[in-house]
């Protein structure tokens, strides 16, 4: 027997199916989401009407001690753009490259050092001390892990600088030497000009 799905759950399911970007008929959407045709239709109606209400606006929900304030605000400035464009503007205008502390935080995140049990070894230095001081990084002996704040910053940095994902990839150690390259970079001293001149003189004398 089919159980009744709450409208909230149904909304999440439909949105999850629509995420793929594929076109659906109501029937296909109902089949894909395993929901009743009429439920799917209702959800699509709600989404369509909310889409109009949210155009150029954003819903701001703030928790204030015992009260929650909800406000539909006009989008201004950067918020007018999609998230990817916002990131691009921030990156281009203000922070074209990740800072060293962001690199450290992302490294810890990628190493899954997010709890004291999973702390990893890092060479100590001023930068890591500052991060510990700011409570972005926790320390156990000579091993380090991300605090909740650190995790939040690291995730943000990774979104802004996706290229950081490669920083913790361990490259395989090369046991073989490229002989061709070795020949090219084999070094020596340049020919001694005085010696060459002397040899030249000898040659000329013989002839």
């Amino acid at each position, binding site marked *: 027997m089919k159980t009744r799905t709450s409208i909230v759950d149904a909304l999440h399911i439909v949105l999850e199916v629509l995420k793929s970007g594929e076109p659906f008929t109501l029937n296909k959407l109902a089949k894909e989401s395993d929901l009743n045709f009429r439920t799917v239709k209702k959800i699509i109606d709600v989404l369509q009407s909310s889409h109009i209400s949210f155009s150029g606006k954003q819903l701001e929900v703030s928790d204030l001690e015992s009260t929650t304030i909800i406000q539909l605000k006009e989008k201004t400035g950067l918020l007018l753009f999609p998230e990817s464009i916002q990131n691009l503007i921030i990156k281009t205008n203000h922070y074209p490259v990740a800072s060293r502390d962001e690199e450290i935080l992302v490294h810890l995140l990628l190493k899954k050092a997010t709890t004291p049990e999973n702390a990893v070894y890092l060479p100590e230095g001023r930068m890591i001390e500052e991060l510990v001081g700011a409570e972005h990084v926790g320390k156990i002996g000579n091993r380090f892990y991300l605090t909740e704040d650190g995790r939040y910053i690291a995730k943000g940095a990774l979104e802004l600088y996706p290229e950081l994902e490669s920083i913790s990839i361990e490259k395989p150690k090369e046991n073989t030497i490229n002989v061709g390259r070795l020949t090219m970079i084999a070094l020596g001293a*340049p*020919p*001694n000009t005085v010696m*060459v001149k002397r040899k030249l003189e000898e*040659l000329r004398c013989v*002839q």
Partner: protein
Amino acid sequence: MKEMMIECNNYFGEMSEDRCRTVEEYIKEKIKDHCELNKVAMKEIQIQDNLIQPTLTIRYNTGETQSLIELIDEALIEIGVAAIKIVVSKIVSRAVEGALAGGGTGLVAGKSTNPVATTLIGALIGGLVGSAIEKRITEYVATKNSGNWIFEKIKVSGAKK
């Protein structure tokens, strides 16, 4: 005419014009009796700070390439330079092609005035331009392996066997 491009081992230090000219003179003296020498030029390129890559270019009209390579290699070793790769190419001047093309252009352009004179001028200019254009056809690539030169003949596509 043939051209030999000799790539030598990199060495430490600063680039030196004087050293290049001296090595050029020395190589000239060493090989002048074994070929009809046209030009010897040495170039140093700084590929990194204090790291120099020397290249020698030798142009000659007649002479047996392989024995010439052995001779140059020996001469270079004597002064402490190791050749590691040599590319031998045949240089074809396009003077004739240029003259023909220039003559044709002159003929077309000169129809209204004096066709003969303009054709001749066109051919002369074409010849001058053509002689400045060089075409290199690589014949050999020689690489050193355990002290011996390995010659690899380069096949020109479309060439008759």
